[in-house]
């Protein structure tokens, strides 16, 4: 690999990416791309975003060494990049603040967003409150139930939450509904897409906004933890937190990059969300990428205990990295993730999001493979407050005993 993988931009990542959307959206995508390119080159924009990162989100996020958790990881040293400590509780805010600033630059007074776990919706509602924008969040009905606390948070922040009752009533359908809203209201509205999927320029732009995670972490590793890690691990839904931490390390050939998808009931069942493991290339939500689909190209419903990973597509850059062999992607079942969630809670006093727990469970396996002396940097993408109801039910925590 002589060329820098880090320099890759859209619209295509190899054969993946592009713009497979109705013509009605092309002008808005062009406007967004032009605004983004101008902003990226504008020191004022960069300073504004950096200021928000520092004094609103609380960046840089720290790296915590998980010493007691490491004991379960085959002797590997486990380090946690603490995106859970960001304001609103996950990595999602990094992208949201960037796009909200762009919405302001474009003079758009209304933002819409899709959300699965609700973290992106909460971050969007937060930015809307901060910047005085109207905010509508589309959320699959199934997800409004399993992430009820986040629905309340969004409403308290002043956003309108619209439960989506079509299709599988999860993240995929929330994106469809957001796209329909955008086609209709594109003059006044910015679609604040929450992951590295969708039509160009979203995959590249959202990646850039999250690349702060890896940029900070790479520096912190060298400065405070004795050098580059052996491996970097993250969970993969649409792929934003994973690409955010991977990106800085793409050209460090010795650093392994590993993404963990939701395997739901298990990799030997058909109830999972392991798109890169079991999907085929196709077109969904505006981009060519791996997709869980049947032979007719109908999207197949995904399954995961984690709303944020319950998505039958994935960002095109991940599809490209997979085919290049630069990153590996494995599946983690609901049960493995929940065990890891409990383990981190009880060894480190950190309750992670269920999404994030997939990366933790993966790192436990990876540590056993890499062995003593290895270092695994995990993107701790979010905190578990939103998941307490699911966890309480799963572990039977509420009641008299």
């Amino acid at each position, binding site marked *: 690999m002589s060329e820098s993988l880090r320099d890759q931009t859209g619209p295509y990542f190899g054969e993946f990416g592009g713009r497979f959307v109705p013509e009605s959206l092309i002008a808005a995508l062009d406007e967004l791309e032009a605004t983004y390119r101008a902003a990226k080159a504008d020191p004022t924009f960069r300073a504004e975003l950096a200021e928000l990162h520092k004094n609103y989100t609380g960046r840089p996020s720290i790296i915590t060494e998980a010493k007691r958790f490491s004991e379960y990881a085959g002797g590997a040293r486990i380090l946690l990049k603490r995106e859970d400590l960001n304001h609103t509780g996950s990595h999602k805010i990094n992208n949201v603040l960037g796009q909200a600033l762009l919405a302001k630059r474009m003079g758009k007074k209304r933002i819409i967003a899709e959300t699965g776990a609700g973290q992106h919706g909460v971050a969007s509602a937060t930015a809307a409150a901060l910047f005085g924008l109207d905010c509508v969040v589309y959320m699959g009905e199934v997800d409004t139930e399993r992430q009820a606390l986040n629905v309340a948070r969004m409403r308290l922040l002043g956003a309108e939450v619209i439960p989506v009752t079509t299709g599988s009533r999860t993240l995929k359908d929330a994106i469809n509904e957001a796209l329909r809203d955008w086609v209709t209201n594109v003059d006044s509205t910015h679609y604040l897409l929450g992951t590295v999927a969708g039509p160009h320029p979203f995959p590249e732009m959202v990646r850039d906004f999250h690349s702060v995670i890896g940029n900070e972490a790479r520096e912190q590793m060298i400065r405070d933890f004795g050098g580059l890690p052996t491996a970097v691990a993250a969970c993969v839904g649409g792929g934003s937190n994973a690409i955010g931490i991977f990106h800085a390390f793409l050209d460090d050939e010795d650093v392994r990059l590993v993404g963990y998808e939701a395997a739901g009931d298990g990799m030997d069942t058909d109830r999972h969300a392991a798109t890169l493991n079991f999907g085929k290339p196709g077109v969904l939500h505006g981009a060519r990428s791996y*997709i869980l689909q049947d032979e007719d190209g109908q999207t197949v419903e995904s399954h995961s205990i984690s709303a944020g990973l319950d998505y039958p597509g994935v960002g095109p850059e991940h599809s490209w990295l997979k085919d290049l062999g630069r990153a590996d992607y494995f599946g983690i079942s609901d049960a493995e993730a929940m065990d890891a969630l409990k383990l981190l809670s009880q060894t480190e006093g950190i309750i992670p999001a269920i999404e994030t727990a997939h990366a933790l469970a993966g790192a436990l396996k990876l540590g056993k493979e890499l062995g003593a002396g290895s270092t695994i940097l995990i993107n701790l993408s979010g905190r578990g407050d939103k998941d307490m109801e699911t966890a309480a039910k799963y572990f039977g925590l509420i009641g008299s005993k």
Partner: protein
Amino acid sequence: MSKTAAALSAPGPKLIGYFPAGFPTLAESVEAAVVMCEAGVDVLEFGVPYSDPVMDGLVIQKATEEALANGFKLRQLFDAVKQVTSRVSKPVLVMTYWNPVLQYGIERFAQDLAASGAAGLITPDLIPDEAAEWLRVSDELKLDRVFLVAPTSTDERAAVAAKLSRGFVYAVSTMGITGAREDLDTLARGVVAKVRKADPEQQVAVGIGISTAEQASEVNEYSDGAIVGSVFVRAYSQGGKDALAAKVRELVAGLKK
């Protein structure tokens, strides 16, 4: 000249009618399509049910969801089209989101489509920029290919769509998704004008949101045809093929007044 373009350029106002294949079942959708042609649509648009139809409003979403739930498979499409084209002489275009075509194979899809007697494809989520293979294959097989032009399309993009479309250009009347609208946007005139300016010979039909005979007539004053879908699907859902035929006749009668 393509059969579709010929039909649309004949004198008089034109009606293009949409119906989803497989709704509520394959056999019934064939009957519905035939009924629409017999009742007076000039061109039939047969829709492929797809799991994620981002251009469609609730009426068509529900219908195509039902078609999929009732077991619609892509390979049945071509046989269904053949049944329609063997019974009526109106041009039949298939409207499909792109992923089903990609998975079936663009070349194979086009060959089976041509063999079924369909005139070509309308592709709501395929822009000319991404269509290289489809352009080549449709040229080889002389299939119609209908691209969309929106109110927000630049003159440049409208010109590309006008140049590359065959059969007609689909002028999106309004910013939005399919479904009946009370007041049809005047934006439609602008879209048609853009296409006309780029290529005065090209056919242009207007769709999205047309629900009444008055709207369909008005659209025909400045374009080559009105595209109507949701209203027909709703009529069928409420009263079966008799209601569908009555709705088509009502619009055609209003049009020819």
